[in-house]
């Protein structure tokens, strides 16, 4: 079927919204990643979780809380703001920078697990790696994400993935968390059929 001519525009279609993870799913996924971190790091010794703002920060705190309930270890948590390391600073109006909070023990010689909500182009993670480089010298760096939506533009992969969501570039993955947005949910927005 051909589209109607421009002279008779169809009413604007609402973008489709599909819930991928509901609140209970999000908490199960966080639990699983916490278990995987414990398994892969042999009990999370010498491990530091660094959340990338905005939503990576509460995710990192949740992971640390779950890890301490499962195995009774306290994993240091921090926040790593990557604004000043972005490769698109000059394409937008000046961005406000957020706080960077490192755990008291620092990151030198530690295993750093970067935590973010969505892994997409990989550019945020590249910026985070650059930022880490200026702060200290971790023994190794891993990446944990709640959602991997594909479309990487850099050779970067995650070590821990909550959920792989195949998407088209026209679609948007929207993550909300109780700490920042009032409720836990992962939605797929857009992808209006032609």
């Amino acid at each position, binding site marked *: 079927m051909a589209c109607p001519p421009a002279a008779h525009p169809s009413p604007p279609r609402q973008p489709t919204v599909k819930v991928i993870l509901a609140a209970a799913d999000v908490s199960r996924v966080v639990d699983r990643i916490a278990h995987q971190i414990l398994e892969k790091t042999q009990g999370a010794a010498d491990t530091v979780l660094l959340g990338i703002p905005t939503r990576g920060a509460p995710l990192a705190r949740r992971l640390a809380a779950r890890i301490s309930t499962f195995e009774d270890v306290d994993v240091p948590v921090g926040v790593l703001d990557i604004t*000043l390391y972005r490769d698109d*600073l*000059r394409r*937008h*109006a*000046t*961005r*406000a920078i957020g*706080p960077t909070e490192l755990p008291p023990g620092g990151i030198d010689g530690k295993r750093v697990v970067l935590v973010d909500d969505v892994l997409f182009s990989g550019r945020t993670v590249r910026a985070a790696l650059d930022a880490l480089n200026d702060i200290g010298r971790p023994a190794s760096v891993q990446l944990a994400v709640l959602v991997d939506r594909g479309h990487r533009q850099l050779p970067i992969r995650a070590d821990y993935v909550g959920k792989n969501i195949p998407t088209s570039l026209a679609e948007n993955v929207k993550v909300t968390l109780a700490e920042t947005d009032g409720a836990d949910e992962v939605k797929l927005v857009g992808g209006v059929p032609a």
Partner: protein
Amino acid sequence: MIRHLLSGADLDAATATQILDTAAEMATVAGREVKKLPALRGRTVVNLFYEDSTRTRISFEAAAKRLSADVINFSAKGSSVAKGESLKDTALTLQAMGADAVVVRHPASGAPHRLADWVDGSVVNAGDGTHEHPTQALLDAYTMRSRLGRLAGLHVAIVGDVLHSRVARSNVLLLSTLGAKVTLVGPPTLIPVDISAALAPGADVSYDLDAVLPGVDVVMMLRVQRERMNDSYFPSAREYARRYGLDGPRLRRLPEHAIVMHPGPMNRGMEITPEVADSPRSTIVEQVANGVSVRMAVLYLLLGGNNR
């Protein structure tokens, strides 16, 4: 975000607060192993200084370098300016070299405003004549906020040669915007007539330092510029120091939490005694360190994004 920083009046409360918050994050870089951020890589900052200055120029240079900008220092001595080049021709030269920001200090009030019309980049006023010095006001506000926890409701006394002080002017404008109350103190000859009406409706004027001291949170001492001492604004240096200098007994009359500030360079024994300058309540050295963070914040917010 604003394009130039020429006056304390360019900043509304939200922008000023954003600069102070950004400066607080920039300050953490000073404690890191690598004291450098890549935010201004490939940008050029020109320090254009027509007047002698050590701390302001070095402070701007350190700030720009910590943000990875390229810095060109230009001082009027030993340049074409000594051969008679005008400000406009110098500006066009800098423009041709691709300066993204020009930090300018000039003995003529208003020179940075003129410069802003001639160059495409951002202009930062680093002190013009007896007019304004906005980044000094920002670093003073930053220092007050980090020592006392707030700015709104603070009572700040600015003491000394208000007439010739660009620091005082910028501070009155910025502090009023941020909700602090300012009292200007000095001999009547050194306080401009109608200054509170012209600058900030809320600012008070007093000629009696001792009466003001017990009620303030911050005392900011201004430098008595040596060249003024012979201009008969006051009878003698000793009389000035006796009436308007901050000494030990006056320090003890301040409220317990109050801090003492000075933009530097100090005349020890004139407006401030060594006992006061070196006391733990003086923030003079802190102000210098804070200056770098605040100027990093200003340069980042002016140049960091695409604000054109």
